């Protein structure tokens, strides 16, 4: 019985520590998220240059994530939508991300800190291909973990841009957001699952140790 337990434990430990060595999803760490900038605005629309901050006071409203983006979006082509791309293209951090290795996807925790609903999606541009998570509508105060699945391990050396799109849907009835309007979106890196697993195992070990003593 003890042997079986030892084996199971070994398998768990191997899965825990060897897992990250294989391709895992990539998440944007705080220092990288702080360097993202406005890459583009949907054609025909207007987006005023926004600011990126980890300072809750400068952010203006309570920040759920660790890095916040504030910007203005304005539908000017009468299609009721306007979007801005907040990415790493053209920033110094892009080369760091390119050197990060290979990953099977990209995931990020995204929060809408604004009083109006905004749509968000993650994107990755690599090797001439575009990967997106698809837009998720976040109501005021809501948050979600978004993810892009590459299907297979993607070598980040070919990466040309990575980040998130924020989109406003300006349409009556309700008229939220109004056109134009300001968005407040913040992000946090997703704590990798192996960490959670490690904590669980640590907890289980403590419980087992206590039982053993009894």
């Amino acid at each position, binding site marked *: 019985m003890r042997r079986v337990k030892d084996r199971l434990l070994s398998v768990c430990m191997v899965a825990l520590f060897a897992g990250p060595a294989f391709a895992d999803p990539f998440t944007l760490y705080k220092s990288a998220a702080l360097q993202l900038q406005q890459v583009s605005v949907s054609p025909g629309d207007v987006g005023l240059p926004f600011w990126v901050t980890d300072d809750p*006071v400068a952010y*203006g*409203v309570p920040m759920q994530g660790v890095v916040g983006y*504030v910007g*203005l979006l*304005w*539908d*000017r082509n*009468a299609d009721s939508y306007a979007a801005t791309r907040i990415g790493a293209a053209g920033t110094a951090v892009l080369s760091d991300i390119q050197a990060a290795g290979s990953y099977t996807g990209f995931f990020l925790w995204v929060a809408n*800190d*604004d*009083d*109006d609903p905004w749509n968000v999606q993650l994107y990755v541009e690599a090797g001439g291909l575009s990967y997106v998570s698809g837009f998720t509508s976040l109501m*005021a105060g809501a948050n979600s973990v978004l993810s892009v699945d590459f299907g297979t391990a993607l070598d980040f050396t070919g990466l040309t841009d990575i980040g998130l799109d924020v989109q406003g849907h*300006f349409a*009556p009835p*309700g*008229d*939220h*957001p*109004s*056109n*134009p*309007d*300001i968005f*407040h979106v913040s992000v946090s890196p997703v704590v990798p699952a192996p960490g959670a697993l490690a904590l669980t195992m640590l907890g289980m070990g403590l419980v087992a140790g206590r039982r053993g003593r009894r």
Partner: protein
Amino acid sequence: MKRVLLSILAAGVFVGQASAGMYVLDSTTAMQFDTWAVSAGDSGVMLVGPTTSVSEYTGTMQGDVGWIGLLMDQTSDNLAAMTISAGGNLGYSGSHDGFRAFLANDDDDPWSVRLFVTTSGPGGGTFYSDGGFQPLAGHTNTWLTVSTPFSFSAVTDFGFEVQGVFGLGHPSNPDVFKISAVPVPGAALLGVLGLLAAGARLRQSAAKR
């Protein structure tokens, strides 16, 4: 009898808004309100306005002339305001019992508004509309009145202020306001014209019989 009633109705439509002696903001004057300033320590920018173009305003405009601006509270008092006024465009004359204007909030968030008239000389100062800032919920409007008599010869500036009360969730900080002024002279006038047309038609058909 009918004619008398019609005359009273028509007089009501055209004269109703302009009480005797009040200076009532019209589209021509509102289009002169192109000077703006932001409350001390706060940030703001005028994005559009004054404009009568609905396509430029990008949305429903309750008034005839609109302004779009951005306000951000940076003094942590949860308030930021923009003054929108005639500034140097002062070519007006005459004495008035007060200043009256229609202001509409075309935004989805609540914004507060008030009128002001600044005069120089003895007894001069800045006079605000009755009750000070009036909160306007999203897509609502109001008439405001500065009840202090003034002469344009002493006026150094007049216009209105838009204030965001942040910290209550709406508007968020910063946020964009959309305010329009001067009622569109549509509904009442069209109603009277419609009644006139219907009356004429009834009269014609009665005469044929």
